[in-house]
């Protein structure tokens, strides 16, 4: 398999995720977009882990790294949803652009 394919996939996920973060009003959707970006990281890591192994470096570092990323990503989703929930309770809106009490 050409390394370029999965890497392209990762880049695509990353860019699209970035779009989602910037464009969507719904905070949960923003969170989802970030998850897309995190997924792109794991793809990268796995692919590069393979390349590293082929070059003779420590074989599974990439995968372990990816595992950590998945775990941490999941935990972040939890915290993030909790914050969104809290905000919703206080404001009854999860529109991210309503959160502009503080500026300048």
């Amino acid at each position: 398999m050409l390394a370029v394919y999965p890497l392209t996939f990762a880049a695509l996920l990353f860019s699209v995720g970035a779009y989602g973060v910037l464009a969507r009003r719904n905070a949960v959707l923003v969170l989802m977009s970030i998850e897309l970006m995190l997924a792109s990281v794991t793809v990268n890591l796995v692919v590069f882990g393979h390349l590293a192994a082929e070059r003779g470096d420590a074989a599974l570092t990439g995968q372990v790294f990816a595992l950590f990323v998945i775990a941490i990503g999941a935990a972040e989703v939890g915290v993030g949803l909790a914050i969104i929930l809290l905000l919703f309770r206080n404001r009854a809106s999860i529109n991210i652009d309503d959160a502009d009490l503080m500026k300048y």
Partner: protein
Amino acid sequence: MTGVDVAMLIVVVFGGASALLVVSARNVVHAALYLVVALLAVAVTFLLAGAEFLAWTQVLVYVGAVIVLILFGLMLTRAPIGPVAKETDVGRFLPVAVSVALFAMLMTGIWISFDGVRLAVDAPTTTAALGDVLYIEWAFPFMALGFFLTVSLIGAIIIARREEGEGPAPQLDTEVAPGRPVPAPTDASASPGVTAPAQEVVR
């Protein structure tokens, strides 16, 4: 072009398309479902790259847990489940431009650096091998990760839990007009001698 290549290309197309749908779907629940597809595409990529354990982890953690969590979140926040009229007040230009620029930059880099590099997936990584590495070489980060997950859990609980007895009374969401901020109370420490009930009065 091998079969793996073809499979990968299909994954790229499907995964990419569903990712695009995630960020562009008018209906948030649809978006969440598209996210499932995109994450499954990632899992397939893992499989193709020989990371079996990781693929299953991905499916379990993300498709199994995270998506459910998100759906719960969507429901708890009583988000307008139907289509959203206005996507953003940022406007579309900036997100699109950023996204396209990022993609272009990354692709250029990837093409320059990895054009023609092949992944030779002979045999998938065994879970045992991964476990060996994880629990010996990476034992310390793993423990730290464990602690981190604990902290996140407690943090999420603290934030998400409704107040009982301590501090201000629970919110009555219905009394608050959507999109309007609740009048921010004065700082709790404003009145040193005043105890919690007084703050309820403030509410």
